[in-house]
């Protein structure tokens, strides 16, 4: 307690971020594994139980507040096959809704890397993010959510992995690599940095950006986005059309 009311001359600036992670009901095991992977990689994440209703997203900012979180990642499963990810700043927004595709979790045996549980990952963005206004906003938001602050309780002191976000085909591609600083074949040789993939992998298609947290006016919408249900329905119609033309 500062009795004489004197303020410390220079307050040390800190990056204070905490992220609430939760999902809707009806997620499949694959989606759940992806969520667990993110939880394990981000020590400043607080996981909450599944949200009961898909229509009451306005509850989420309150829930984040109860958990002392100022960010939220919400996985929304639809029809037991489509996965959407909401990334939001709570309580005042903005929030981004994205479609998650090409999910590979860390359980897959093809990715041979490993890293400390709770080590702070580097976060890398490619230059593509800086070229559009929505890209810059997403970059800022992801820096908050995926950049582990040094004050995170479970964070470990060394850096041994890197999260990369790359913009390609107007989608955001996520990869996670282990940073290896020694050549295993030449343990005494000069340090040579190489990378081994740890996983998970996924691709995010931004759909909309809202001004508020899970609410508010749309400030960006992706004109190229076609909902996965529409794609499937088109495929089915084509199949049906084949039979009709054969019958005639």
């Amino acid at each position, binding site marked *: 307690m500062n009795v004489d009311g004197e303020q410390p001359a220079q307050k040390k*600036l800190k*990056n204070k971020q905490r992220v609430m992670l939760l999902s809707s009901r009806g997620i499949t095991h694959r989606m759940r594994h992806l969520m667990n992977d993110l939880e*394990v990689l981000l020590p400043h994440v607080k996981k909450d139980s599944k949200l009961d209703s898909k229509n009451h997203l306005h509850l989420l900012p309150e829930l984040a507040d109860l958990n002392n979180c100022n960010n939220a990642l919400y996985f929304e499963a639809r029809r037991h096959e489509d996965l959407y990810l909401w990334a939001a700043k709570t309580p005042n927004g903005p929030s981004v809704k994205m479609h998650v595709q090409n999910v590979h979790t860390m359980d897959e045996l093809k990715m041979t890397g*490993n890293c400390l549980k709770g080590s702070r990952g580097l*976060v890398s963005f*490619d230059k593509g993010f800086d070229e559009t206004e929505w890209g*810059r906003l997403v970059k800022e938001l992801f820096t908050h959510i995926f950049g582990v602050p040094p004050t995170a309780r479970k964070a470990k002191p060394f*850096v041994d992995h890197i999260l990369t976000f*790359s913009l390609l085909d107007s989608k955001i591609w996520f990869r996670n690599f282990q940073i290896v600083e020694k050549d295993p074949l030449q343990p005494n040789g000069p340090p040579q940095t190489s*990378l081994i993939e740890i996983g998970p992998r996924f691709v995010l298609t931004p759909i909309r950006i809202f001004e508020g947290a899970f609410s508010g006016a749309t400030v960006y919408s992706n004109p190229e986005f076609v909902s996965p249900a529409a794609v499937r329905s088109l495929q089915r119609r084509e199949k049906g059309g084949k039979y009709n033309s054969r019958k005639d």
Partner: protein
Amino acid sequence: DDAVPQQKLEIDNQVALERIRQTIQLDPSLPWTETLALTYPEKIEVDVDDDLNRELAFYKQALHSAQAAQKLAAKHNFPFTRPSDYFAEMVKSDAHMERIRQRLLNESAGIKKSE
């Protein structure tokens, strides 16, 4: 008889996007060690369907950023490399890593057999 495909309404409110970004922006005087965020100075421009080159581009991005981070860490006096005697829980369990190793061994054995 096909209906004209309806053009979806595109919203791209640049002014609002910039304003929102400025309200949430972290203090620019924050030292790098607080966020560990890096920007790769190149754009990823490869064929999306070319898996090999695409992954290579991502790898290059990550490698470039990792090397930049090592330099930045040295500048900020920030512990980067884990000492070889520092042990702690890993993301993947020993059992899981053993399964990965076994799979690699099986694969190389299979290749040898077919030769």
